[in-house]
């Protein structure tokens, strides 16, 4: 038996079975990874580290399961992921800058205290990301060039200058195509 995955209720005599961590990962891993990605991107401008964050969350759960019974595992895992992503982002920032973390450099408050708004913003980004399959349907509304720019710039991270060269247009034209494409997608998703 894995004692760290089993625990007893507060009363001591009521056995509480914790879900298998592998099952939890299969059910919620995708959303956790996207949550970590959203925090790292929006709060720290980082485009990697999401898998490291989620791995750290599960490593911690293996070593030290929650003391209380968890009634909503998805909410719990997302919240822990958000916090760990903040921690990870801060560590990377310190490594990069070679200095201590200064929250004033960022738009939002530190994670420990008044961060509900920051969490809500990240949750909104993740919820929106969950609608991207729908968004891909919306891509059909775009012109060929708009679709090309959105796909290559947003999904493939291609630079504006490179796309300008590929399409034979000016870099500002690439920006215009992206803006018009994003506007159509916003209308399609009904987020305006």
């Amino acid at each position, binding site marked *: *038996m*894995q*004692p*760290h995955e089993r625990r007893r209720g507060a009363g001591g005599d009521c056995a509480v*079975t914790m879900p*298998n*961590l*592998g*099952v*939890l*990962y*299969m*059910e919620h*891993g*995708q959303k956790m*990874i*996207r949550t970590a*990605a*959203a925090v790292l*991107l*929006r*709060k*720290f*401008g980082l*485009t990697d580290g*999401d*898998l490291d964050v*989620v*791995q750290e969350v*599960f*490593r911690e759960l*293996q*070593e030290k399961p929650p003391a209380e019974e968890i009634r909503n595992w998805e909410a719990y895992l997302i919240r822990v992921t958000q916090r760990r992503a903040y921690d990870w982002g801060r560590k990377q920032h310190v490594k990069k800058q070679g200095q201590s973390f200064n929250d004033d*450099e*960022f*738009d939002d408050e530190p994670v420990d205290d008044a961060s509900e708004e920051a969490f809500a913003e990240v949750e*909104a*980004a*993740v919820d*929106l*990301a*969950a*609608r*991207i*399959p729908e*968004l891909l349907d919306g891509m059909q509304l775009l012109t060929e060039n708009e679709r090309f720019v959105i796909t290559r710039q*947003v*999904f493939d991270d291609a630079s*504006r200058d490179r796309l300008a060269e590929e399409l034979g247009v000016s870099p*500002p034209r690439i*920006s*215009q195509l*992206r*803006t018009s494409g*994003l*506007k159509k*997608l*916003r209308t399609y998703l009904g*987020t*305006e």
Partner: protein
Amino acid sequence: MNEEQKAGLLDRLIAMPVQRTQLLDEAGATADERTELLELADIADAAWVSTRGAPPVEEDPIAAMLGIAPTPGLAIDPAAFKQARVRSGLNVSQLRDRLAQRGWQVSNGEIASWQSREGIELLPALLQDIGDALSVSADSFTVTRVSDAPTIHTILRKSDWFVALVEQWQTLRHVARSVAEAQLLTRATATVHRGEEPDVDQIRELLEHLVASSGESGSSRQ
């Protein structure tokens, strides 16, 4: 702000998500322009976030760590499993319910097939939970079919250092030997990129680090 200026500003907002407020302030954006540009940046962020996700399970280090990456060759032994279940006093439905408590959705029919069909391969984490439910080691009802083909799994299984690491991992993680071996094998496989020759020294270094760091984190809390 004209449309070209807005498009240029949107470029910068997307490229520098942390500095959005500052960029909008510097550009002197109006409230309406702010709202519009931030909404568009949100769409771009969401599109990017949607591209993030777990790698294929056989390359996923988290799946390997949690024992949910398939391990070719690790199968249930029908007769031994049935014997263990009967000895435990659990009928098929009771075992199904125990597994459901751990989140596994298996049917009575599936459990029955584990008792009757050879070669059914199950996830290491599920095997461990079956063993826990039956109060026996998963080793007692699993078989490992070792292929003669020189795969990375067969190379590792024949290595003394790997066998020693499996024993350590088994102790550290309180799992059956077969499960410990499966977890380390899938972890090793996750480091090998498709089409590339596996580097055994590199795998050894990674697994030794994994086991050592797990041991350290366990002892540091005591």
